[in-house]
């Protein structure tokens, strides 16, 4: 009861928070996107404040070309293991779900450890689709180390791991360029970031130091309604006072310094590479690839993967949604031909995609 009272007081406070000018806050994490819409927090925003979703859903930012590679591998008869979210994502000509219906051996797993166990049990070439951000990358690194340690020879990784700070840097650079050229994209200029809780548990607060340098505040947030409301209050207060800081509003989980041991294991196995993001294009050092000592685990080394060059879908506007340029209903396909039960684009496929969250929670 006391908690409900506190929550309603916080909600009132947000609703009535006096804000100067227009404020556009980007939530970077797909789990935040879902939480915001599930709790209906978008209805608590004071006048002048907008929340937009950023490139925070790994499934959504993974380009078509990656799905095409996975499909090509599935057709070669290897066992494909993946987090379940990836299976329905359409590539340029097929999806893993369709390939499975056509007889390919494709299995959804909760953990890459389960994928490794499948490899050991079935004895066939098994590929794990290594997709995710800094939260997931150390987990996959730990499994890569185990694979070499135990000399398991039939397990490999098709990597598409992505790093959050380089994408935020690219987005803020877009915003500054747009603001100075006053082009059609000038609306991309952001006022601050609701920063991802579990990515930050690994990378820590200092990973976002480049934001205050660009006069942008950021708040690392947990996922409860109270976490998100208080984080938004902190962002609005910083906006009003012209304070540009990174604040950790999730200290029960996130150490300011992050998780050094996880980062060390990650750095033992992976190194940064330039990588493609849906909607953002290629961003320098924004992906992770296996280091030479782990090259034996690279599916791209182990197999010849032939894909036709992917042609981008022109009518799906997932890329614009991921840059915070449009809200999902502005896409001509939204909730008409592209729906959660029949998704055409990745922002609708993933339960954490912005389009899916808009349809599911209204």
């Amino acid at each position: 009861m006391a908690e409900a009272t506190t929550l309603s007081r916080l909600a009132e406070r947000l609703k009535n928070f006096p804000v100067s000018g227009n404020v556009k806050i980007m939530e970077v994490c797909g789990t935040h996107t879902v939480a915001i819409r599930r709790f209906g927090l978008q209805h608590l925003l004071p006048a002048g404040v907008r929340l937009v979703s950023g490139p925070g859903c790994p499934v959504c930012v993974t380009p078509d070309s990656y799905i095409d590679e996975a499909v090509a591998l599935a057709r070669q008869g290897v066992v494909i293991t993946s987090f379940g979210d990836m299976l329905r994502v359409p590539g340029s000509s097929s999806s893993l779900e369709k390939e499975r219906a056509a007889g390919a051996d494709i299995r959804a797993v909760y953990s890459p450890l389960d994928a490794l166990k499948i490899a050991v049990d079935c004895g066939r070439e098994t590929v794990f689709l290594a997709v995710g951000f800094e939260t997931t990358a150390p987990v996959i690194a730990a499994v890569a180390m185990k694979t070499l340690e135990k000399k398991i020879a039939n397990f490999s990784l098709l990597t598409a791991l992505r790093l959050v700070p380089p994408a935020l840097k690219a987005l803020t650079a877009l915003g500054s360029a747009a603001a100075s050229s006053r082009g059609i994209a000038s609306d991309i200029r952001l006022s601050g970031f609701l920063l991802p809780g579990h990515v930050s548990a690994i990378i820590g607060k200092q990973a976002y130091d480049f934001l205050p340098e660009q006069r942008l505040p950021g708040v690392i947030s947990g996922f409860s309604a109270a976490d998100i409301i208080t984080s938004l209050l902190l962002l609005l207060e910083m906006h009003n006072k012209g304070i540009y800081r990174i604040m950790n509003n999730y200290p029960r989980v996130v150490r300011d310094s992050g998780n050094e041991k996880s980062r060390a294991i990650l750095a033992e196995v992976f190194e940064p590479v330039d990588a493609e993001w849906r909607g953002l294009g290629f961003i320098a050092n924004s992906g992770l690839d296996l280091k030479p000592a782990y090259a034996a685990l690279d599916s791209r080394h182990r197999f010849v993967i032939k894909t036709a060059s992917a042609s981008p879908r022109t009518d799906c506007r997932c890329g614009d949604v991921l840059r915070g340029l449009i809200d999902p209903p502005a896409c001509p396909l939204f909730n008409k031909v592209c729906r959660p039960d029949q998704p055409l684009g990745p922002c609708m496929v993933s339960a954490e995609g912005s389009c899916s969250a808009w349809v599911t929670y209204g």
Partner: protein
Amino acid sequence: MCLAVPMKVIEINGDMAVVESSGLSRKVGIMLLDKVKLNDWVLIHAGFAISKLTKKQARETLAIFEEGRFFG
């Protein structure tokens, strides 16, 4: 995708542990964390403990907002 849940460590075997929450238990990797001990609460993501929870509760954060002091 970065979903993670807090669970309590009830058994440790080398670099693996059994964790439990609300009557559910599972085996997870603990090599991504330093010094995991029995009864620690850890955050589980994709089969691994990735962070240790501190005693610092949300209530403390809430108290600051109740008092209305953000930046002094």
